[in-house]
């Protein structure tokens, strides 16, 4: 009896234990099964089209219904990021002033609105808000500026009676405030949006910005070497029956840079003529300079961005020639596009997503660099740091030379030098300043093409010193002109 009771008890314990073990095993297997199903599903359907989108859907939230991963990362462009040379200091509400940190920038821009307000960059999410808040708007600004600070295409179509190119051509003569008000009225006041780089529904990459389309056509028609853009070389060797069309001719890997090149470039953006990308003679600093030097405004006066308030030199202002400088670098030459480093692929389970949190690759070294470079993260960061530090030091040196030149011009003026006698010095100031600004305004601290950046800065320092000498010898040099 006692034995039977014990056996029965043991049997019950065994039963309960078995049940527990089997329950745990079954639960684990089910969890695994569901995990596998989810991964298979992710691998099978990259997206589900719940919300049809069209050309007039400029609100990214609408697109976000279909492409939540991309939309989520896009929203992160509002996050504050900093690298050693990039990103912003200052408060969350307002980035720090660049012109306070590098006082020579302020002297460079005397006579131009950038001497009033020139701050560190923030992410894509702020492009429109920051533009609407800048104190540069206390001076008259052209409607052209919205080409790149808003999702502008529906407004261009409206202004051009359906033809975006015509609307674009009309917008430069309007004031910034006028175009901005229309944008808000039409409910398209969004920063760069999905529709600006993607064809609705197919999501294929495309370029929409008229400035870029005209600029790249001019580049294709020029004789400038573009070994990193094979589709242009192919178009050149063809019958040239129609103009080069990036949306038809460019390869996928080129489109991954072209979409960024719609805005991250040098341009003219004021009211005297339509927004212009100066690529008709090539993409190098001196080719762009030559383009501007040979450009005449519609009113017949020679091209200039502003007259330097201190010296009277006709100055060229470089904007942010990232596309141009990248074009001269080893990454471009090796077929590495903007998106490869600034929007690298990332995984979401079994699916592959382009990171739409566009940011410095230094904040994302494992995905941005290590895919190709088989070195540690620390090593990659150190390599970049060396390049940027050298560029920074060389830039300060070139800027010091330019400041010396401005001092020499001021001294010559004080000693009675006239406008005629200062022409050589002022011409050299324009050349030196263009080159410094080309690298200083560019947002990579020289990284996009280190050797090219050093070459341009070296020329800048040389022109500035030549200009200093010319100003000091104004009596002789001026007379020979």
């Amino acid at each position, binding site marked *: 009896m006692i034995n039977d009771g014990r056996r029965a008890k043991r049997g019950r314990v065994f039963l309960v234990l078995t049940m527990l073990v*089997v329950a745990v095993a079954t639960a684990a297997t089910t969890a695994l099964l569901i995990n596998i199903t989810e991964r298979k599903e992710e691998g099978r359907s990259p997206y589900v089209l719940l919300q049809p989108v069209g050309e007039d859907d400029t609100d990214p939230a609408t697109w976000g219904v279909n492409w939540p991963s991309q939309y989520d990362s896009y929203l992160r462009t509002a996050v504050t990021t900093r690298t050693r040379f990039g990103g912003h200091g200052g408060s969350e509400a307002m980035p720090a002033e660049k012109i306070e940190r590098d006082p020579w920038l302020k002297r460079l821009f005397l006579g131009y609105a950038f001497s009033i307000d020139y701050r560190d960059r923030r992410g894509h999410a702020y492009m429109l808000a920051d533009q609407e808040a800048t104190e540069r708007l206390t001076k008259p600004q052209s409607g052209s500026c919205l080409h790149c600070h808003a999702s502008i295409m529906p407004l261009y179509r409206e202004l051009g009676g359906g033809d975006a190119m015509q609307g674009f051509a009309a917008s430069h003569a309007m004031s910034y405030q006028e175009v901005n008000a229309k944008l808000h009225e039409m409910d398209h006041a969004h920063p760069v949006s999905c529709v600006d780089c993607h064809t609705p529904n197919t999501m294929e990459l495309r370029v929409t910005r008229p400035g870029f389309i005209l600029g790249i056509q001019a580049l294709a028609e020029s004789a400038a070497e573009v070994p990193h853009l094979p589709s242009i070389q192919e178009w050149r060797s063809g019958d040239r029956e129609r103009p080069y069309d990036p949306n038809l001719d460019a390869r996928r890997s080129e489109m991954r840079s072209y979409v960024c090149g719609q805005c991250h470039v040098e341009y003219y953006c004021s009211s005297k003529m339509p927004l212009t990308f100066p690529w008709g003679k090539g993409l190098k600093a001196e080719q762009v300079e030559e383009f501007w030097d040979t450009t005449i405004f519609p009113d017949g006066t020679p091209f200039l961005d502003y007259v330097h308030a201190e010296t009277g030199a006709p100055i060229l202002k470089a904007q942010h020639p990232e596309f141009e400088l990248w074009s001269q670098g080893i990454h471009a030459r090796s077929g590495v596009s903007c998106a490869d480093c600034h929007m690298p692929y*990332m995984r979401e389970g079994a699916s592959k997503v382009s*990171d739409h949190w566009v940011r410095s690759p230094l904040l*994302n070294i494992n995905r941005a660099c*290590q895919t190709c470079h088989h070195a540690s993260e620390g090593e990659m960061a150190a390599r970049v740091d060396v390049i940027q530090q050298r560029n920074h030091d060389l830039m300060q040196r070139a800027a010091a030379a330019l400041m010396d030149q401005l001092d020499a011009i001021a001294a010559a003026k004080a000693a009675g030098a006239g406008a005629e006698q200062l022409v050589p010095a002022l011409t050299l100031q324009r050349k030196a300043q263009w080159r410094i600004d080309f690298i200083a305004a560019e947002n990579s601290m020289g990284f996009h093409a280190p050797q090219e950046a050093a070459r341009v800065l070296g020329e800048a320092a040389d022109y500035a010193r030549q200009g200093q000498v010319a100003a000091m010898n104004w009596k002789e040099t001026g007379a020979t002109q």
Partner: protein
Amino acid sequence: MSRRGRIHESRTALVLAVLIGAAFGLGAFTFDYAEGTSYLSTDPAACVNCHIMRPQYDAWQKSSHHTVARCVDCHLPASGLAKWIAKADNGYRHSKGFTLQDFPEPIRITPGNAEILQANCLRCHGDLVHDLVAGSTTDRDAIECVHCHRDVGHGEQAGLGGADRGLEEELR
């Protein structure tokens, strides 16, 4: 044993049989659904079951070796116990990593697997290069074939960024 005791015991056995049978059935279905048997084959398609290796697979198809070598020809020892140990080791690590999504990015070959790879280069090309790469599978400072010939197996760079680990991790 009493009649009642026997009925009790057979009921217990029945319950156990149903329980364990159900669990086994679920397990068997999961194994089949996950294409478990494909991993016993040498078919390269098995390596893209989980999609993570898709870029590597695509790049392999564009490589010079795709007509002469499948995944396992380079990435597993040729035969014997070593092959099954390597298979089990990789199988465990890959399925754990993919299920828990806890692997480091970018995906890189492990030191042990790099040795297997080098041995497989030499298995075919050893006669040609034995003067160049003496000790290349054992010396610490030895030159690996793929150090220079990186694109023979996977064509051009086969890269993929890595998972979004959440804002906090991203900002670290």
